Structure formats: C-alpha cells, structure tokens
C-alpha cells in the first residue's frame, strides 16, 4: 500500500476516535459537574477536562473562565482548537477524501455526511442545558463509521491501518482519562468510600462505557483500584490499555514489512508488560508514574509507525 494512503487511513480513524472520546469526556464531565458536593473549587471538573487534553493554555489565552459553556464551546465547536470535535470530524473527512478510492463508497459517504451535519450544527450551536444529544450523535457517528469499516472493507492493509489508528488513539485516551481523574479528583488511593466515590467513579466508568461491565466483572463496590485494573489490564474490556495494545500488536505483526523490526520489538515489549502485569505492582510503583510512562512509550511508538510506514527516507 502507498505510504501516503496508509497515513491518511490511520489519521482518518484516529480523528474519528478522537472526536468520539472528546464527546465522551465532555458528556461525563458535564454530568459530574452537576454533583455539587464533589466540587472542591468552582469549575474543578472542567479544568481537569482541559488538562486531560493538554489544551488548557490555548483555552486560557482565549476564554475568561472554564465554565461549562466555555469548555463545551472550546472542545466541541471551536474552529481554532485543533483538538475540537469540529476539527476532528473535519480531519476525518479530509483524510477520507484523500483516499476515497481506497475505501468503500459507504465509508466515504458516512464520513462526508457526518462532516456536512457537523457544519450545520456548528452554525446553529449546541442547545443550552448541556450537549448530551450532540455528544450522543458524535458517538453514534463514530460507531457507524467503525461498523461500516467492519461490514464493508476487505480485510487487507486498508482495514489494518484504520484499526491501528482507532486503537492507538483509544489507548492514548484511556490512559489520559485515568491519569487525570486519579490525579485531580482523588490524589490518594486511600481516599475511598462514600457516596462521592460511587458517583465519581461511576461517571468515569460511564465515560468509557464500562459501568455495566464493572458490575458484571466485580459484582462489588466501585473502588479506584479495581477501576484502574479494569481499564488497564482487563483483556476483555474493549477500551482497556491491554485490549488496545493487543490489537495494535496483532495489527502491526500482520502489516509487518522489511523495516518493521524495531517497531515490532518495542510494541511487543509494551504489550507483554501489560499482558503479564498486575495491578498491585502498578499501584506500588505509582499509578501516575505508570501512566505517564505508558503515554510516553506509545508516543514513541507513534513516531516509529510514522518513520516505518508513512515517511521513510530510503531513496
């Protein structure tokens, strides 16, 4: 496959996944902000939301305060914010446009339609009282595009690079959510118990569609440690780090190629550590330290994917 095609496919999927994750985080943050007793300071949750995305500086330069309205405007609709849902959907569509010939017409039409609809919503604005219907819509469009990929694409490298983008972005996102929620909402792992826990952790689980799964898996109280275990190590959780790296590792092995040696080695190492890791070890080491290192390592892997498949300099 052409390097440039693979590059577009990968970013098409990443952009769509990013739009979905941003919608998920905005939705759950909005719900959490309604729990007055949980707020240590005004706009606490919204600040946390901004630091998850690493966009707080950009935000502060242009908005007076991190109110619900401002952050939703910034993260959902702001044309100047490269990480907004608006720009993620635009990116997904532009990347799809560049490789129209390589994907099915259903795939292109779905992404094109999503973008046209996004532009309309952008003009009208999100209704007051939170953007839940809008966030639901973003999630549905993301589900749809993944479903179309599954239902219509030949299982060749086109499909693999798409999936690679999806799981890479998802791993990055799950790690960020966990890190920030732990760090900001609950500095110490011993601060457990009480109704606040139920709501805070419940909201976090809901943001990654894991609330019901938690109940099924643990059949017990929600505790921070188990939440961490579920979202880091459980191979049956579709958004856990282990699941994401399982997929990334398998996809990279299938794509392979003459220059993939170092990439496969490093990916296999990270994958192995997750697969055979234990939550006690992770907690003993420090969850924040663990997640920061994980983010750094997948960032490096992303670079390596770039030079291995997209922008080699071997002429």
């Amino acid at each position, binding site marked *: *496959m*052409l*390097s*440039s*095609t*693979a590059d577009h496919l990968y970013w098409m999927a990443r952009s769509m996944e990013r739009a979905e994750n941003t919608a998920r985080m905005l939705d759950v943050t909005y719900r959490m902000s309604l729990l007055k007793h949980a707020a240590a300071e005004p706009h606490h949750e919204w600040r946390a939301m901004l630091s998850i995305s690493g966009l707080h500086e950009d935000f502060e330069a242009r908005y007076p305060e991190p109110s619900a309205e401002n952050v939703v405007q910034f993260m959902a609709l702001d044309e100047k914010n490269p990480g907004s849902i608006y720009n993620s959907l635009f990116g997904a569509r532009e990347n799809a*446009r*560049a490789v*129209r*010939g*390589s994907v099915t*017409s259903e795939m*292109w*039409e779905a992404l*094109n339609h999503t973008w046209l609809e996004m532009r309309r919503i952008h003009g009208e604005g999100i209704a007051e009282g939170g953007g839940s219907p809008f966030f639901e819509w973003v999630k549905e469009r993301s589900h749809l595009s993944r479903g179309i990929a599954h239902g219509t694409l030949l299982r060749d*490298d086109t499909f693999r*690079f798409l999936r690679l983008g999806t799981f890479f972005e998802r791993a990055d996102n799950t790690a960020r959510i966990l890190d920030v929620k732990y760090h900001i909402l609950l500095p110490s792992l011993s601060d457990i118990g009480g109704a606040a826990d139920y709501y805070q952790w419940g909201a976090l689980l809901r943001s990654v569609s894991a609330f019901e799964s938690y109940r099924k898996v643990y059949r017990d109280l929600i505790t921070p440690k188990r939440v961490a275990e579920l979202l880091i190590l459980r191979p049956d959780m579709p958004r856990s780090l282990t699941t994401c790296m399982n997929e990334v590792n398998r996809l990279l092995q299938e*794509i392979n*190629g*003459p*220059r993939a040696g170092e990439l496969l080695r490093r990916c296999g190492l990270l994958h192995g550590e997750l697969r055979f890791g234990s939550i006690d070890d992770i907690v003993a080491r420090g969850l924040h330290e663990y997640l920061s290192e994980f983010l750094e390592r997948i960032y490096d892997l992303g670079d390596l994917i770039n030079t291995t*498949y*997209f922008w*080699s300099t*071997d*002429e």
Partner: protein
Amino acid sequence: MKPAYDEMLDASGKVRPSYQGFADWLASTPADVIARKREEADIAFHRVGITFAVYGEDAGQERLIPFDIVPRIIPAQEWQLLADGLRQRVKALNAFLHDVYHGQEIIKAGRIPAAQILLNSQFREEMVGVDVPERIYCHIAGVDLVRAGEGEYYVLEDNLRTPSGVSYMLEDRRMMMRLFPELFARQAIAAVEHYPDLLLNNLRSVAPAGVANPNVVVLTPGQFNSAYFEHAFLAQQMGVELVDGNDLFVRGDMVFMRTTQGPLRVDVIYRRIDDDFLDPRAFRKDSMLGVPGLFSAYRAGNVTLANAVGTGIADDKAIYVHVPEMIRFYCGEEPILSNVPTWELSKPKDREHVLAHLAELVVKEVHGSGGYGMLVGPTASRAEIELFREKIVAAPQKYIAQPTLALSTCPTYVENGVAPRHVDLRPYVLSGKEITLVPGGLTRVALKEGSLVVNSSQGGGTKDTWVLEQ
C-alpha cells in the same frame, strides 16, 4: 445561419428511426415520473460527489456538471464510419509524433513547413531521438467531433495531452441504467462500461520491454485539481494506485513508489499532469507536482509515460490544419473524417479575410483549451469583437479562425420543458499494441439557449451517449 441539424427530429419534425424507441418511451412515461427521476439523478450525483472545480470567476468552488436525461443516440452505421475515421486519424497522429521526434520526413517532404513545427512552443526538443514503446505517443486521445449542416461530422480538436471527461461518460451510463432500466431492455445499446479494462490493457501493453507484470499507476496533480474526481475514479476502476508526485521518487533512473512495505518499482504512469510540471529538473523548476528525475528515467526507457511527453505538437491548433495531409502522408489514405475549414491568422491573406468577418467567425487561441479565451463572433458584443481584433493584430500567430458551425442540437430538459440545445461528441481512442475504443463517448451539451460552447467550465452539461447495435 441555417437551422441546425437535430439529432432526434428530421427537418419535417418527424422522429428519426434511431430515436423511435426512445420517443415511444418518452410519450408513454408521465411527466411527473420523469421529473422525479431527474431529481433523483441530481441527488445521486451530489452524494457520490461527482463535482469539478472551476477556474476564474467562482474559483475554488465545487460544482456539479449538469446531467441531462435525454440521450444522444448514434445509429450503428454512422458509428462504424466514425470509429474507422478515428482509428485512421489517431494512427496518423502517432506516426506524425514519432516522425517529428526522429527523421522529420514530413518536413523533408515539404508537407508541413519546418518553422511551424520546430519553432512551435509545443515542440519538445528534449524528446528528439527518444524511443517510446510501440512508437505510441498518444495512448489516450479525446477527439472532439461536431455535426453541422446536413449532419456531416467534423473533427474540431484532437485532444492528445491529458483529455478528461471519460468518467462522466461512465457515470452518465450508470445513472441512465439506474434511472431507466426499461429503456435498456427495449433496445440493443452498445456497452461502454468496460472502458477501464480496455484502458488498463492498453497501458500494460506499452510497458517498457521485458517487464512481465507491469505496475501501472495514475499520477494526479492532487485533490485540488479540477479533474481529481476522474483521476481517483479511473484508478479505482482499474484497480491501480492513484499517486501524486510525493508518492514517487527516482533512484538510478528507475521510478519507485513509497509503500508501507518499502519502495516498489513503477513501470507505466498514466499521468494527468501537464508536461511542464512533470519533472522540476527537466521542465519547470518551480513545479511542486512532479517527480525530480522522472524525465531522465523516461529517456532511459525504464518507465512509460502515457501520454508521452511532447504530444502537444500534434494537437496544437496551428498543426491541426495539417492532419488530413498527415493521414495521406503516413497512411497513404484519404481522410475519412473532415477537418473544420480553418484560417491561419499568421497568413496575411487569411488574416485579412478573418478581420473583415469577425462577427461571423469563431476565433481560438492556438494553445488554448477548455473554451477559455475564444471569441464566438455571432454571439459576441461589439466591444468583445473589437477587443479581439486588437489581440489578433498584436499577435496574429497566436490565433486561428473557423466558420461558426451550426452544431447539431439534441432535445434537452431546460427550465420550461424540453428544447433543442447544441451538442458535441468526444470519443476516447486508446492506442497501444492496437487501437481500441468503446462505442460512443461523452456528449457535452451547451445548456444556454443558442450557446455553442459546451465546455463544463462554461456552463455545459453532459448526456449519455448511445450507439445502437443495429
């Protein structure tokens, strides 16, 4: 001007035999059904995104090329004549291209003045002595034909560089079959859908010698080009990669494409980039679209470019007047298809005549294309005519003039029902080991009443073109 020949109705208003089947269907189909189908076509074209970008006034916008549901129908016998004529013409043009870049026998024989070829800006010095596979230069030609007067055909232009529009031919057919399947069941209409197969075969047949399984790619200037849709469409239909300049590189006079599995050798490039932009080392230095070193690899015979570099010398409007002579010279035959009578404004006598009759004539730039920069005397204002007069006097060699042909008309849906509109026809002729073409081509229609300019950039639309099988 005499009334134009109508494709569907004869002079007495009777339906011609070739249109009888369609006319019967039209008479028996309620108007609201047709209106609904026309809407359906519009929506479908938008959804698929068959659009083109426009230069000039509304630059940067994407527009839909209007599609008209009344087909242009060509009787079998008439097509046979056209097909023979096109084969003959393209064969001669390829022979001419080989000759001007090698022995230049046609100049030596005194059939075409040396200056017209050698001093022409379209003549590529770099191509002299370069051998190309099968001696084919023009692998894809889009020859514009028009019908005038009593119904006789003329060749208006031989488009031998990067002719476009074939995707509309294919999409128009797909749309007609989807909207009106019953029409295709009623009569035998020659298929055109295998064009991408013929094109791929044709491209593979001209691969460099010794390449068993040639890797063919389509080279596009990029997604902001007006014909990008067509480039992507053809690549997809042929099942080959669509590349832009950044996807290719040259090493050791060989062309490679960058793939996820490392560099992969490229053998045949169906390029939709003009000569000037192909290779910044050989042609325009500022080109960001091309591939550095490509021309050197081409000269070395390690890659085939379709069309070849330098074909512009054969479809230049100053050379056009000599095509009948080329056919006699290279094929030893009389031309089957006629040229439109043409005045060369570099000749004082021709110029004098043209300047005295500007209001009746069509004046075109020698190197222009796409309907830009031309004067249609009968519909032009006095001021426009005077402006052109100045341009001609200032640089007469840049222009030719032709009589205003009464292009044939075809019934077409317009705002207030069906009315005759002028049409032309662009069949696509493929040359490789042999010459092939699908029956028919792209019919373009000038939607403005009385307009003779069918180019999509000037408000033209398209129609499905049917060649009847008997």
